[in-house]
């Protein structure tokens, strides 16, 4: 069964450079792993200005009112990278040493 190798910083860098679009098989495995975990809640974005601003929120799995965070983004790519880093830390126990 696939597990994320915390030493594969190249995969993380690939995601940071291109969060949307074609990914390498290694990166796609990492993303699939992150996105198939069963967790009490998961991250979503709440759009506060159409096409311009998004606030990170926690959505209870199965439904419920999302809990907003103080983190907001004006680029979707930045939001994806922020959540990727949070999940990387959560899964591997290690901070991603990439800004």
């Amino acid at each position, binding site marked *: 069964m696939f597990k994320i190798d915390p030493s594969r910083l190249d995969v993380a860098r690939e995601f940071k450079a291109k*969060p*949307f*679009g*074609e*990914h390498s098989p290694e990166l*796609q495995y990492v*993303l*699939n792993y992150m*996105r*198939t*975990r069963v*967790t009490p809640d*998961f*991250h*979503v*974005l*709440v*759009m*506060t*200005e*159409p*096409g*311009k601003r*998004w606030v990170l929120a926690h*959505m*209870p*799995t*199965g*439904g*419920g*009112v*999302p809990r907003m965070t103080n983190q907001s983004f004006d680029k*979707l790519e930045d*939001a*994806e990278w922020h*959540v990727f880093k949070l999940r990387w830390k959560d899964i591997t126990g290690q901070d991603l040493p990439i800004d």
Partner: protein
Amino acid sequence: MTKIMGYADRLSLQPGETVGIMASCIGADRFRAEIVRLLNPNAGMGASEYREVAIETPANATYKAREQKIHAGSFGVVPEKWALRGIESFTLQAYVWPTTPKKGARALMGNWAEPGTGFGLALDDKGAAEIRIGGFRLSSGVPMLERRWYLVAASFDAKSGQVKLWQEPIYDKTFHAERPVAVEGKAKASVADKGAPFLFAAWRAGESKTPTGWGRLLTKGHFNGRIDRPRLARIALDRAQIQALASGMLPSGVEEKVLGVWDFSKDISGERITDLSPNRLDGEVVNLPTRASPGHNWTGAEMNWTKAPEQYGAIHFHDDDISDAKWQPDFSFTVPKDATSGFYAAKLVADEAYFYVPFFVRPTRGTVKAKIAFLASTATYTVYANNRSRFVRMLTELYQGRLSMMDNVDILQFEFPEMGVSTYDRHTDGSGVSISSRLRPVTNWKPHGRLWNYCCDLFIVDWLEHTGLGYDVITDHDLHAEGQDLLRPYNVVITGSHPEYWSLEMLDALDGYQRQGGRHMYMGGNGFYWRIAFHPTNPNIIEVRRSEDGVRAWDARVGEYYHQFTGEYGGLWRRQGRAPQVPTGVGFISQGFDACSYYRRTDQSRDPRVAFMFEGVTDEILGDFGVLQGGAAGLEIDCADFSLGTPPHALVVAKSENHSNTYILVAEEINIGHGALDAVQNAAIHADLTFFETPSGGAVFSTGSIAYAGSLPINGFDNNIAKLTTNVLKRFVDDKPFPMPR
């Protein structure tokens, strides 16, 4: 925090007609309403600056705010009748199939009411069968299992106080340790409730000051699951008599004591429930539970309820069914005589909260002047109304390849879950939602938020406005009701970004239009995919049975493939001899939601038959830009397939390429799973920009991509997608017939 929401009592109006707007507002004393015509989506970067035109009308005013509640949960009800009066001893019995027996106490049948009057059969808080007589309760003590049939019966002899309760599993092919349970007790209770309606799947909980699903009756204890062959007698029957009654016979010697012999296999398409007894304790179902459900005696040999209705005598009730919120109008709007056809909305604003209540204005019948009609996909919008599932699980992010996104209006459905969900969801008991009504607040028909369906179609409206060619807006609902006659005045009919759901009537109308020379521009992806059935008398309500195949939010259980509203087989049109490739040349091949791509011109684009299309278009790459994830080809995409009905003379003038890993081959194309199902590895995944002529001088142009619409406004409509599409529109408007190629 202030909340506001609403809905309209009508969907499509002609000038001079009036629509009522219902609103509910919490947290403010007043709200402001303004009638607007929508010209484009509020899409942010790359899109046209958002425009909505205020319509001059007395309806634009400030109104007193009030809260209007929604009473969800389906049930059956028999109005109070003479036969139901004076009951002292009784027997209640039914076959039941509970789906959430662990979810707390639920009603099965009876006239029991809170806090403790009348009599009824129920599930106790552990899911065991229970009899209730006033404040008295006796339980079987054995919780029932999910999705198993039981015969549940209870009797009460008023003279002796003897109470008996049976809970007996019905034989099926599964292995289990269940055994029949029979318990007895003594009750000093009295039925003592005269003149009450008799309910199935709910108990009475008082009266509302405002209309509810049935009069002003408030209900609670909504049962999740199926009820089949319920019976009522004004005597305590013994077990043999109960069996006779359950089997469809009357118990000899006490037949006159039988009050109700309900047969839910009658009138399946409607709301009526039928009592076969001389008492005619007929009633109705409220909030549209699922009918045409296999009953306790379904053998599996017959899938079509119209062929063996006696095996489809179950009604599946859900505690979240909702067919009509029954709100009262707060104001009305009469469409001005000179109104322009288009997408309209009542924009409701209270403090920082806002909500768009959509409706459409079509031209007056018989006075059509425009040559172009945009067919708003109102059937599809209805089917998607309050799509909740996409927000509540990470699966959405998995298949979309990006974080799920919502806005404050989407969040309303989590704050007010009673507004119900869409046919992309499951009920609270896990069964698929097959019925959707628009007679309730809908959070995803709006010009903002996710650029999808209604919102995405506004890109096409924006482009049509830009062309200045003049157009009307008509709706799926009009097409279903009026057929080909609706389309006949127009040279061109444009279908939207995602016209996915079609009734037979709609499809036949479009087919007839195309055969008689009508031109069709299909400006989207994954269109003409699912068969739907409109409610027989209420077109605001649509049913979809997700049978057998396709990319499905849920799959219909075996035996539930036929629509209850019409008896028509549900599922993909592709499985019914009318694949999307027949009317449009293309059909669904893949979906992905992380990034969109572009088309590359093909050699066939040099064919003189399509020279008109490429006048002024010199690029080989088309649509490598767009508001929708950066490209014209993507989200849901279609390709030609000559084996499925693409006309042999069709030209594929451009093909998309370079789609991402999230684009997976659709389920109906996969017989054997393998590891090369994504677009990076599978060349079958692409969109085809397709053109073909039809006999009688018509033609069809198909983009095969939802994202296409989002590329139109880029650079102020000065781009190769807008140019090519406008070329097509101008040629399609021209009366000059298209010759069929030889």
